[in-house]
């Protein structure tokens, strides 16, 4: 379980995460939604010790993320940030194999290589495995980063907008893959998503943030209502039931 207790983050005078308390249970897919600047990425960075928090504590299976040695945490929790600019010329395989670093410390075993090959396969990157990252398209690169995080094989995996740059087929493929990671492998997957329909169809829980605070927290059925969505986004949208899922046609 990820336990977030009274967490705040302040830059100079602006509070960007405001006294957030949450429990994200083990297993399942949790999506965080909310408008730009709501503090979603910041919260994910605080949970994954990429940023120091101003106040509060975060524990992962009882381990305080700011106290636990980083290399131990790296075997439990992984994160992919919203934007990743790797300037090094690494091949997809180099990158994905780095996901094994917490275990191998650079000496890859046959098992490590098998993990990497599997992750590359999951994301359909076999044909691109020996290409350099700077020779890939944006979506291909995004898939390579996700493969690296999957290769890290942690119980908890956080992805900040994993659908960035993906076409609709790969976006659906990505969501199904993450769903499978939760269902078949028992992973705990936490996502930041902008498409509320993806959040609705593939998550067990949705957390809605606005102005640095958690505004709503519930199942897709509870969150995907006209009132709640208006509350989060100041937008009036219709919500329909499609094959048992709640879908909003917010485009028009």
């Amino acid at each position: 379980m990820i336990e977030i207790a009274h967490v705040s983050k302040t830059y100079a005078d602006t509070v960007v995460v405001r006294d957030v308390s949450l429990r994200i249970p083990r297993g399942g897919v949790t999506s965080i939604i909310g408008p730009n600047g709501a503090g979603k990425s910041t919260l994910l960075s605080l949970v994954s010790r990429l940023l120091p928090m101003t106040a509060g504590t975060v524990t992962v299976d009882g381990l305080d993320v700011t106290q636990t040695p980083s290399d131990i945490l790296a075997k439990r929790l992984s994160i992919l940030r919203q934007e990743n600019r790797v300037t090094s010329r690494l091949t997809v395989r180099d990158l994905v194999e780095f996901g094994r670093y917490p275990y191998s410390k650079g000496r890859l075993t046959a098992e490590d290589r098998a993990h990497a090959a599997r992750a590359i396969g999951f994301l359909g990157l076999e044909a691109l495995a020996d290409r350099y990252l700077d020779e890939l398209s944006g979506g291909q690169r995004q898939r390579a980063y996700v493969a690296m995080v999957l290769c890290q094989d942690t119980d908890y995996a956080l992805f900040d907008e994993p659908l960035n740059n993906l076409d609709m087929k790969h976006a659906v493929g990505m969501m199904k893959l993450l769903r499978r990671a939760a269902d078949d492998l028992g992973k705990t997957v936490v996502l930041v998503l902008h498409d509320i329909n993806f959040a609705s169809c593939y998550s067990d829980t949705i957390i809605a943030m606005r102005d640095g605070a958690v505004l709503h927290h519930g199942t897709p059925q509870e969150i995907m209502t006209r009132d709640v969505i208006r509350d989060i986004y100041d937008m009036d949208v219709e919500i329909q039931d499609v094959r048992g899922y709640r879908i909003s046609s917010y485009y028009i």
Partner: protein
Amino acid sequence: MKRLLLATFAILALALISLLIGASSVSLSSLLLFREEQGTAQVLLASRLPRTLALILAGSSLAVAGMIMQLLTQNRYVEPTTAGTAESASLGLLAVTLLAPDVPVIGKMLVAAAFALAGTALFLRILKLVPLRSPLIVPLVGIVLGGIIGAVANFFAYRFNLMQSLNAWTNGDFSSVLRGRYELLWVGFALMILAYLAADRLTLAGMGRDFTTNLGLKYRRIVAFGLVVVSMVTATIVVSVGMMYFLGLIVPNVVSLLVGDSTRRALPWVAMMGAGLVLVCDIVGRVVYYPYEIPIGTIMGIVGSALFLILLFKGRGRFA
């Protein structure tokens, strides 16, 4: 692996040529048969061999230092001479020469390294404060910083009549390398091995703080390690043969194009090509004006800037 072996042979061939040419001749047969011609062994052991070794050690370690700096700054234009590192090392050496001239050479090197470390840390600090719009701003900041530090060094060198020494430190020249005066460069070699052992960590640091942290490593610690290696290597070179420009910039960029940036794979190539380039430049400098010598710094400046322009145009999409 096979290509690396071939490259090793190429370097050995260059080393052999480097041993054979020069103002007093050493013939191949005397080298191979160890025939005791008058003075040959003397020349070989006292000056020719040290010179060739110095070229290889300095070339490889300086190129590796450039590679490390490029990883740490995530910028392809950074090397010890575009980050204030080299100038700081000279200033440190000047300071210790003025204030404590009796310190043994290893001590002088350490003082120079400490200055280099401080100067490079200052450079990184400034980078954090300056909003960076283009990757080219980074080396410009470094060159300006280096210029200021260099001016301070010049001022004191001028006042205390040490201009000649300062010139020797800032312009690479291997013509005065003798046995007993280049051995410090082995420190650079040892540091290179150390960097190779930390290859994966350096690659990770090159991917940025967040990747490094996510994989359970302390980014600051890797940066500190890299900076110490770079500063020490720079100091050994400034102290023993004088700085060479462009080398740390060109070689890692060429290698990056050839084999990518995985440090484990790239570092042996960087070391090899660094040694090769310096050997070639030195040989050219020794033969074009025979029996006079053109200092390697000059040759390196010409060859380096030409190569750099080619790289800049070829990799325009990637670099800018």
